């Protein structure tokens, strides 16, 4: 009964990645091609930029989404459901739509641009800069962190914090010694998910067409120019490997419940 699923998985995942692995070693330099593809200065620069961007986005989303998640997980008030609905909407938005949302916010005819024009006559446009890219990644990451943290905050035992407080602990101490450790598994899995999704995100960068060449964009551009198929294969494998390793590490540290990358 499991056979059809295994067949589909083999035909469209195992075999294709096998092919990718082989193509990666079929360039002019054989297996050394993997090393050369990675050491190419342009590739390396793009890899570093993508790693930095993903790290910054992960930290920022954990802070923002973490606070919102704990808040919404613990408090019930009129409008609570609506807020959760709004905050989780981008979950199924394709990267291109997220990119367009940033253009709507900060593009040439965007909201910020219109407001700044009305206020002091100059248009402020930052959708196509590093800031735009950062905001786009934040946009699609927030729902993922929020959901994980909220679920964890809902089952957090508030009496533990009360006990700590009644024993004289200051709010900061309570947060650092009681709340944070209880949320740690949720934060680790949400962080890994955000990082992995950001590493592989393609649609957002594609729409914003930023000058920052994130790794997926570079792989894609190389692919359309079909310059060097083996280095494209090698870089795709590297990208897949990074996402997979980050997610599995988080899973072994924080337990299951680590959801999907995009």
């Amino acid at each position, binding site marked *: 009964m499991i056979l059809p*699923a295994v067949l589909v998985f083999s035909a*469209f*995942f195992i075999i*294709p990645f096998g092919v990718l692995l082989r193509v990666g070693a079929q360039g002019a330099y054989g297996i050394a091609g993997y090393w050369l593809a990675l050491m190419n200065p342009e590739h390396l620069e793009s890899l570093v930029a993508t790693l930095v961007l993903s790290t910054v986005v992960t930290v920022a989303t954990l802070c923002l*989404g973490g606070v919102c998640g704990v808040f919404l997980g613990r408090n019930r008030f009129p409008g609570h459901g609506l807020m*959760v609905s709004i*905050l989780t909407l981008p979950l199924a938005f394709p990267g291109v739509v997220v990119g367009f949302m940033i253009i709507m916010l900060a593009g040439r005819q965007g909201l910020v641009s219109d407001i700044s024009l009305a206020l002091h006559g100059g248009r402020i446009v930052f959708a196509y800069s590093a800031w735009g890219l950062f905001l786009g990644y934040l946009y699609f990451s927030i729902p993922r962190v929020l959901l994980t943290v909220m679920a964890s905050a*809902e089952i957090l035992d508030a009496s533990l914090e009360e006990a700590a407080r009644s024993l004289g602990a200051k709010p900061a101490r309570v947060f650092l010694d009681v709340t944070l450790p209880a949320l740690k598994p949720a934060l680790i899995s949400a962080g890994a998910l955000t990082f992995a999704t950001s590493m*592989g995100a393609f649609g957002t960068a594609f729409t914003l067409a930023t000058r920052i060449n994130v790794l997926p964009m570079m792989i*894609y551009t190389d692919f359309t120019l079909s310059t060097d198929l083996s280095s494209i294969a090698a870089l795709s494998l590297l990208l897949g490997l990074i996402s997979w390793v980050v997610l599995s590490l988080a899973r072994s540290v924080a337990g299951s419940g680590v959801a999907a990358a995009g």
Partner: protein
Amino acid sequence: MMKHSGFWLQLGLTLLVSAFIAVPMAYSVLAGLMRNAFFGLKSGLTLKWITQVLSLYWPTILLSVEIALLCLVVTLLIGIPAAYVLARAPGRLARLAEEALILPIAVPGLATGLALVMTYDRWGAFRQSMWFILAGHVLFTLPFMLRAVLAVMSSADLKSLEEGAASLGANFTCRFFDVVLPNCRTGILAGALTVVTLSMGEFNLTWILHTPLTKTLPVALADAYSSMRLEVGSAYTLVFFVLIVPLLLCLQRFTRPQAARKTQ
């Protein structure tokens, strides 16, 4: 209970983040209905852009719905039996199989897409058909179906239910359809909603797999953003929202009560 200052600070931040998500959506919906987005609401409202989008892009909308539904059928047919086997089989091999089948969501769609294209590039007819895209979508959504169903299967005590039915003389077919499936319907429904929603919105993988004749909605959206005027892009986004937001809201309603139940 008196609300401490932290409450209001957190509420403020949460409102700000909600605005960050919602305001661009609202602005884009408006721009799709405005006669001229550059002049704003003063230019008046119109359905012109929506009609234009529907006439231009109708095939892509149809293809996306078609692929999403086919994807649902396939993931139901192969996902539920697979989940059943994984839930009933103990031991390392089953866990390993589970891990493997979930791999496609841990790997970026771009990498999977390139691997698929390099593998099936010479299979012209298949490569250029919608079935190639369907294959990608099935691969990417199957883990979600599998996990949703598996979660319910492992929490319901299927084994004793089935033993009970078997001791009353029910054969396997009868047990599977009358005992196993009805007991998993919440998981199946959650999985089904997730599969359809994700398939409708899939871009990274589909962008690599598509051909000029197999453009799905998100793929054509990317085209519209880069080559059409802002109002058309916005109107098309509005059409996409109309399709995807109800699905997302259903999914939220449906998965929320389980999380809430845990607190009580």
